[in-house]
């Protein structure tokens, strides 16, 4: 009798038990999480670190002979140590740290690219909306977008008679094409239903543009912006090499003229890292803004 009753209670208790076990496992898994994060970080960071190390060693070996034309990393470190260690020094008008120079170039990019983004989205919306605007403008855009950034520089110098607006114009004209073309594609792909909703509500052109067109085309627009900011960063460095001023592009040209090769190498690293950050910044902004639009 007693044994049976014990068995009964055990049997009754049984269904409750597995649930507890599951809950426990989940807790245990959560405890491992920091380790998992560390592991994920390691898998992301260790391979590039190893590759960079190997590249540095190869570079060091290749450029160590006295006849080598380029400096090895050790020499870069020794001679350009000031530039690497003090990005924010300021010793007068032409002797400033690389971070300042990058910021000045970034400021130019911000102005030029900002204008390109505003004008590009507006023009892209026009081309995407109107069949006649597309027929007329699309061939022009397709031809102009293949013109290399620096080819615009002499013309813009002639037009503006000043180096700073010319540099801004080169950024503008370089980065506007992908913005226009991607916006136009995005606008053309707005579902007919959204247009019908807008028509039933009698949204005017401006309301339609702000409330339907821009959010619906946002994923495309941000693709264009991302390509555009990459191009404008390419263009500014090249334009500054020719127009002078205090940007990072001019710094490279100046270093070349006074044979400071290690400085050039440090500047290249700055430019690369900055370009990478710009790209990620626009990508992150795009992911944030379009988080609702991609899922149906």
């Amino acid at each position, binding site marked *: 009798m007693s044994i049976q009753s014990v068995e009964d209670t055990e049997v009754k208790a049984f269904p409750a038990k597995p649930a507890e076990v599951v809950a426990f496992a989940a807790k245990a898994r959560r405890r491992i999480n920091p380790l998992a994060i560390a592991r994920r970080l390691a898998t992301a960071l260790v391979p590039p670190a190893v590759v960079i190390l190997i590249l540095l060693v190869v570079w060091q070996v290749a450029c160590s002979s006295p006849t080598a034309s380029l400096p090895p990393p050790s020499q870069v470190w020794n001679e350009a140590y000031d530039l690497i260690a003090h990005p924010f020094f300021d010793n007068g008008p032409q002797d400033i740290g690389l971070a300042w120079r990058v910021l000045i170039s970034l400021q130019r990019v911000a102005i030029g690219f900002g204008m390109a983004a505003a004008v590009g989205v507006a023009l892209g919306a026009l081309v995407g909306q109107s069949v006649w605007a597309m027929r007329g403008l699309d061939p022009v855009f397709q031809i102009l977008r293949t013109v290399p950034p620096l080819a615009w520089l002499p013309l813009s110098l002639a037009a503006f008679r000043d180096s700073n607006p010319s540099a801004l114009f080169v950024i503008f004209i370089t980065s506007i094409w992908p913005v226009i073309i991607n916006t136009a594609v995005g606008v053309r792909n707005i579902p007919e239903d959204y247009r*019908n*909703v807008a*028509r*039933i*509500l009698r*949204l005017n052109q401006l309301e339609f543009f702000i409330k339907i067109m821009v959010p619906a085309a946002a994923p495309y627009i941000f693709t264009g912006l991302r390509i555009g900011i990459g191009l404008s960063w390419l263009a500014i460095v090249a334009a500054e090499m020719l127009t002078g001023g205090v940007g990072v592009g001019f710094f490279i040209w100046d270093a070349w003229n006074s044979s400071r090769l290690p400085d050039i190498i440090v500047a290249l690293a700055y430019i690369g890292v900055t370009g990478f950050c710009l790209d990620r910044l626009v990508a992150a902004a795009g992911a944030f803004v*379009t988080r*609702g*639009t991609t899922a149906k």
Partner: protein
Amino acid sequence: MAAYLKLDHIDKSFVRGGQVSEVLKDIRLTIDAGEFVSIIGHSGCGKSTLLNLIAGLTKVSKGAVLLEDKEVDSPGPERAVVFQNHSLLPWLTVYENVNLAVSKVFGRTKSRAERHGWIMRNLDLVQMAHAKDKRPAEISGGMKQRVGIARALAMEPKILLLDEPFGALDALTRAHLQDAVMDIHARLGSTMIMITHDVDEAVLLSDRIVMMTNGPAATIGEVLSVPLARPRRRVELASDRTFLRCREAVLKFLYERHRFVEAAQ
């Protein structure tokens, strides 16, 4: 009494590449205020085109759509449409989707607080107030369609146009939503026109069923009155004689007299 909505000898043809294709021919129909009318027919017969004509989304080729003796020639909120695939804007929450309509239609006439109350009342009407902060991607198909109905109702339309509103839903959800629409129709007394290809749905919901012949140049073949008292309950109606007779009449029209011949398409 003059008709509330009048479709006066409407023809519709599309021209593509020099080829004229006649879709609708000589559509004549009058609908009274507060009526629930279904339009049924095989696919490709131009039902959706007819609804778009009433909505003003496409223009008639000949004839006229008259709403309260005024000609309809462009879309507007007084003829709100519930679309087949809900067409909620995915970047807005449920509340914001309805708000888009309310702030456009009542932006001048209602205060902010009144607009908020009106949005919530319409969401309540379709029992979606609890999900007001969710985005369309986070709710089920049936819920999206409910919000679509709330958005249309929030425009306070003279006529609500439903374009196969339950076509993409499973049978159970569909039944729930049909009940919801019947309930709203009873409470608000609104005029509704619904496109459907579901015979049971048409008989259950409608005061009159407009049956379309096959295209090209489709027209109204027959109009059937459904003399069933409201409120209607689907379980009781399943064995109701009038219901079955109406159902049979529609089925006969669709499958005997105007059989959908695929080879001809």
